């Protein structure tokens, strides 16, 4: 601080907010994403890899291990593209560094198939869970490249970390844009949530589903298709409800 600086300059030398900031879990998440990106894309950078891939990484403590396979995985795995390759084989070839488990398949338009997967990777004592979607074009017979790319918003959870524990989400969703439709793909950690609803700013329901797949931990996975083209996710709220329709959770978005 120079002699010409105002006295209050000194108060700005510290951090703007108290408490958790650049947390260990955040650092681990960066490691996870960096190494995943490098393994998948080499020097091209993960920002450009993976046509139509958006992930939400959730770092959970090793106490959660081992993570059981999804119910119905066997049935989904048997699905094949026109050349006879299984989707699982193709996804594994695309993301060899992670443990990939297909959760949903969804036809999108006349030409495209979207494969929703959860992926696991262990980095530095954390287990990363990523939710992602990849679109495959039947016509071109290759993974599509989207017109735009969305960075994955990451959520970091570390069981036993009191700071993170304060902000443990009960439900996390990622918005995935494909043409002609976009999707919300999410996971719920609250076993009571059995219905997902998306409402607009006037609290009108614009999408809803009870089609939820649960794994053996009670985690529930779901997708919601958004028919509106050009939808960018703004102004909408995702709600988690129980079987009777009572609202258990709603979103905090930024």
């Amino acid at each position, binding site marked *: *601080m120079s002699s010409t*600086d*105002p006295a*209050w300059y000194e*108060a*700005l*030398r*510290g*951090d*703007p*907010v*108290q408490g958790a*900031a*650049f947390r260990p879990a*955040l*650092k681990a*998440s*960066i*490691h996870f*994403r*960096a*190494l995943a*990106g*490098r393994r998948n894309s080499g*020097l091209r*950078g*993960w*920002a450009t890899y993976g046509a139509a891939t958006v992930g*939400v990484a959730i770092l959970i403590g090793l106490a959660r291990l081992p993570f059981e396979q999804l119910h119905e995985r066997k049935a989904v795995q048997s699905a094949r593209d026109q050349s006879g390759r299984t989707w699982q084989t193709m996804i594994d070839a695309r993301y060899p560094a992670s443990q990939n488990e297909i959760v949903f398949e969804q036809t999108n338009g006349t030409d495209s198939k979207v494969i929703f997967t959860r992926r696991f990777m262990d980095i530095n004592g954390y287990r990363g869970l990523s939710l992602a979607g990849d679109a495959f074009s039947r016509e071109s017979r290759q993974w599509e490249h989207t017109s*735009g790319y*969305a*960075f994955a*918003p*990451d959520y*970091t959870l570390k069981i036993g970390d009191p700071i993170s524990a304060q*902000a443990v*989400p*009960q439900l*996390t*969703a*990622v*918005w995935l844009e494909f043409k002609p439709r976009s999707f*919300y793909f*999410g996971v*719920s950690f*609250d076993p009571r949530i059995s219905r997902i609803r998306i409402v607009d700013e006037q609290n009108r329901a614009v999408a809803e589903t009870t089609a939820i797949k649960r794994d053996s931990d009670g985690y529930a996975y779901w997708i919601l298709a958004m028919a509106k083209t050009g939808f*960018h*996710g*703004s102004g909408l709220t*995702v*709600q*988690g409800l129980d079987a009777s329709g009572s*609202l*258990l*959770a*709603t*979103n*905090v*978005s*930024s």
Partner: protein
Amino acid sequence: MSEEYLKYIVEMDARILEDLMESYGQDVWSFAYSLTRSRAMADDVAQDVFLRAYLKIASFRGASSVRTWLLKITRNISLNYRKTAFVRKVLLMDVVTPRQQQHSAEHAFLEQEATNEVWGQVLRLSTKYREVLVLHAKYQLSLPEIADVLKIPQGTVKSRLFGARKKLSLMLTEEMLYELN
């Protein structure tokens, strides 16, 4: 950390990434927070900053310090996050938050979150004033370095800094008078 070697490498390994995060993680996060005024967004920005640095280290040629380079990336990504609704994230909490609370959160949030009164007022400044003041006061960058980060002429940095200081001094004085009354 010794930064000299960074301008010669074309690919970063996990150890270097760890060193960078250890040395500059908090700086990056705090700058991201001061621009976005959101913890969640600062988390996202910080991740993207280090991912970009990890993948684009070859573009660092030592024209500025590593810290200035990272702050420049932070600023670019923060502005992108603020400008676009393309990235959508949804975080469902186990407590239902009334919509009104979400809308009125900003002022209360800034006051509660800020480390001290000065930071509280800085966070209420316009972005134009806030970024130049934070870079000068907190990060102690020189005027040429600030001009580089903000991609504006040094003369503009100087005039913005003058305006920001004047504005903040006024705000702090008003705050003091308010408390006295």
